[in-house]
């Protein structure tokens, strides 16, 4: 407590010290949380590994887990930004499908040689995804319509467009060479005993890291959090809330485009039904990762672990030969458990 009799310089010194202490304490708490989580995770993994006759910890299986979560993790990264502003983006699954089809069509008409085709295709795909995100945001920021509705509409529209453009059928890539490295390639696979890292996983890692920094370290990230916490206060503090809000939907659409690219490269085709149901999967990852649907709170690291947890769970259940209907129930229970635990933790902290 600042005693009026204490000179200001001393208060400042005390505050500086306390700020350092508070930051250190936060770090310790975060470390403890992450450490605890990791330890629990490890224990679980070991148990599971025994149950699965040692198959889980096979390097091949571990790389599979990472490859399987790439799409969900990338979509969830974009979705995190939207959900922090107390919004929601239901259109990402459809944008994945639409971008895949558009990119396949573009690649099939281009004749630029490998890298040229790749770059132009990627840019067109990103443009389509970001444009869809922009259209999502327009009625939200201009008219104050609920994003649930505008993105639901986009979900239908983008899926329909994808199906029309592809005549309802998957379109094979005429020449998949420019994309094969991204679809099925590995790097660092020359090292003996190391399976290498899939390019798909690497893309996921880069997306996660770039957006984690964007959210955690830049002014834009701070504005996203402030907007989610109290939009009017942010606006009156000079934050261009319309622009920030628009950008989060553009980011989400852009992430969906990257997801569409990865699927197209992996399967050497653009399938208009790609990404069906992906919107709910990625929302689950975001929520399991501790981002509040009420807005104002969330991290990319949390989201990544949310996607990882869901991926590991899926993989483990497959290894244990649990039938897919039961898997759905388990996943539902895990989502519920995650948010209940988070709420209990918050209440515990508030009551202490």
């Amino acid at each position, binding site marked *: *407590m*600042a005693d*009026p009799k204490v000179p*200001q*310089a001393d*208060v*400042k010194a005390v*505050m*500086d010290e*306390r*700020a350092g*202490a*508070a*930051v250190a304490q*936060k770090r310790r708490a975060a470390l403890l949380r992450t450490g605890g989580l990791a330890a629990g995770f490890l224990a679980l993994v070991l148990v599971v590994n025994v149950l699965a006759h040692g198959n889980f910890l096979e390097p091949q299986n571990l790389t599979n887990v990472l490859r399987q979560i790439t799409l969900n993790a990338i979509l969830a990264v974009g979705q995190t930004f939207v959900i922090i502003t107390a919004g929601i983006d239901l259109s990402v699954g459809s944008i994945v499908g639409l971008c895949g089809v558009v990119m396949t069509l573009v690649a099939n008409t281009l004749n630029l040689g490998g890298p040229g085709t790749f770059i132009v295709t990627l840019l067109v795909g990103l443009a389509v995804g970001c444009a869809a995100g922009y259209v999502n945001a327009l009625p939200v920021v201009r008219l104050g319509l609920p994003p649930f509705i505008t993105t639901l509409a986009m979900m239908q529209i983008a899926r329909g467009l994808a199906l029309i453009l592809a005549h309802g059928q998957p379109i094979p890539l005429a020449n998949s060479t420019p994309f094969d490295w991204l679809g099925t390639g590995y790097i660092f696979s020359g090292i003996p005993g190391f399976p290498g890292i899939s390019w798909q996983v690497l893309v996921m890692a880069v997306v996660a890291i770039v957006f984690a*920094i964007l959210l955690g*370290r*830049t*002014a834009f990230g*701070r*504005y996203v*959090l*402030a907007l989610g*916490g*109290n939009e*009017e*206060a*942010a*606006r*009156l*503090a*000079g*934050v*261009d809330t319309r622009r920030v809000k628009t950008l989060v939907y553009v980011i989400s659409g852009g992430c969906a485009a990257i997801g569409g690219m990865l699927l197209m490269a992996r399967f050497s085709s653009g399938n208009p039904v790609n990404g069906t149901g992906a919107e709910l999967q990625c929302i689950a990852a975001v929520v399991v990762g501790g981002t509040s649907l009420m807005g*104002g*709170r969330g991290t990319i690291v949390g989201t990544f672990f949310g996607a990882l947890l869901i991926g590991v769970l899926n993989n483990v259940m497959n290894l244990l030969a649990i039938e897919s209907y039961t898997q759905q129930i388990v996943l539902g229970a895990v989502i519920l458990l995650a948010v209940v635990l988070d709420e209990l933790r918050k209440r515990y902290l508030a009551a*202490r």
Partner: protein
Amino acid sequence: MTAAAPPPPLLRMTGIVKTFPGVRALDGVSFEVEPGEVHALVGENGAGKSTLMKILAGAQPADSGEIDVDGKRVAIDGPRTAERLGIGMIYQEFNLVPDLGVIENIVLGVEPRRGMFLDKPAAASEAAKVLGELGIALPLDRAARRLSVAEQQLTEIAKCLVRKARLIVMDEPTAALTEREIEALFSLIRKLKAQNVAFVYISHRLEELPRIADRITVLRDGKAIETRAAAQMPQDDVIRLMVGRSLKAHFPDLPPVAPDAPVVLDVRDVSAVSGVRVNDVAFQVHAGEIVGLAGLVGAGRTEIVRAIAGADVPTKGEIRVDGAQVVVRSPRGAIRAGIALITEDRKAQGLVLGMNVRENTTLAHLGLFVRGLFVDKSAETQTTNTEIAELRIRTPSAEQTVRNLSGGNQQKVVLAKWLIGHARVFLFDEPTRGIDVGAKAEIYALMVELLRGGAAIVMVSSELPEVLGMSHRVLVVRGGAIRAEFARGDATPDKVIAVATGVAA
């Protein structure tokens, strides 16, 4: 029990203790209320008034201590229990459902039923009966969101009465009321007292206590310092007990405006249409000058400062800062031009409650802390700590979430946010609403400090003494337009009120 024992009080709280992380909010508080009594509970922000009342209302459990109602030990384990015991709570921010009508709000949760269905006629007659007995006229079908503040408050009182409350706790009931509405509220309280309803009355407006309170209890730092009959507790004593030291004159001396002081803020024929319509407002504020905007609630004062700050976009007119025209299309533009708006509702408009002191302090000027691509958190912390020290913000550290600070300290965080930007024009909208005496004095001192630095200040306040005591000039607003201007010496309460109410032009 002997026959000679006096009847037990309606409420007796004994040795109540409540601890929050790092703070002992209540340190063995004992507090009594007699039937039909108005018992005022006063203290600085953070003294423990709200916590004590939340425990009484069942919103929070006490760590230890006892509560007796009518001499019988009770365990208040939730709001329903409190309600059953006849305890009604009216928070400063009302708890009405905005889209429900007055009747539905009054009977919410205790709706009369016929079989499975709601009995609307019975609800209407029940509400009408309660209101009728007290001689209150309310538009029964109107949605709560369209009621005035005073009407909402009456609805809250009726809600308590339908639940047969014998003790009603009111938190800052007059903060947003006009003088006439306050008088109406007081006569209603007196009527209910006659029916043996007791009140716990929490207020920062000490001057109104002699008019309404029977007894006054002063809380300080989580302890009940003293309880006395209101008649034996002059205002100076209350203040001394509250702050633990004697506080001299409420308002500091304003430094005179230099005769050659340049015009800093020049508002020319500004109009705006959101909320109360603002019509052709024109005035100037010089360097080192405070211009007070007086008027009734709803006169358009807030709308005027919002238009200047770009919070609402003006439809017409021109705003100049230091002679340069300002394009006010958004708060962003106004901030760039050196205009800071300290809004009246800090929770809804001033702060991001879930963020910490540092993040709130730097929000409006985050650009100052960006190095390369990234926000430099240690620079933020440095600046924030300087503000914490200068404004005496009581917080464990810059990393504390502002939600956990008391009202006065939250208001100081809002001020810190605007101080770091070196604005030229400060628009204060109800800067001391709901804030304790000590913090008020600090905010006044800060305004004087800003004047010395050559800033121009516009202050909107519903507290007439504040406007008169803290302004070089007073502009009286009615119907979204400036109706009169008084120099400091000429502004008297009756002249200002006459213009504000439309008695005088």
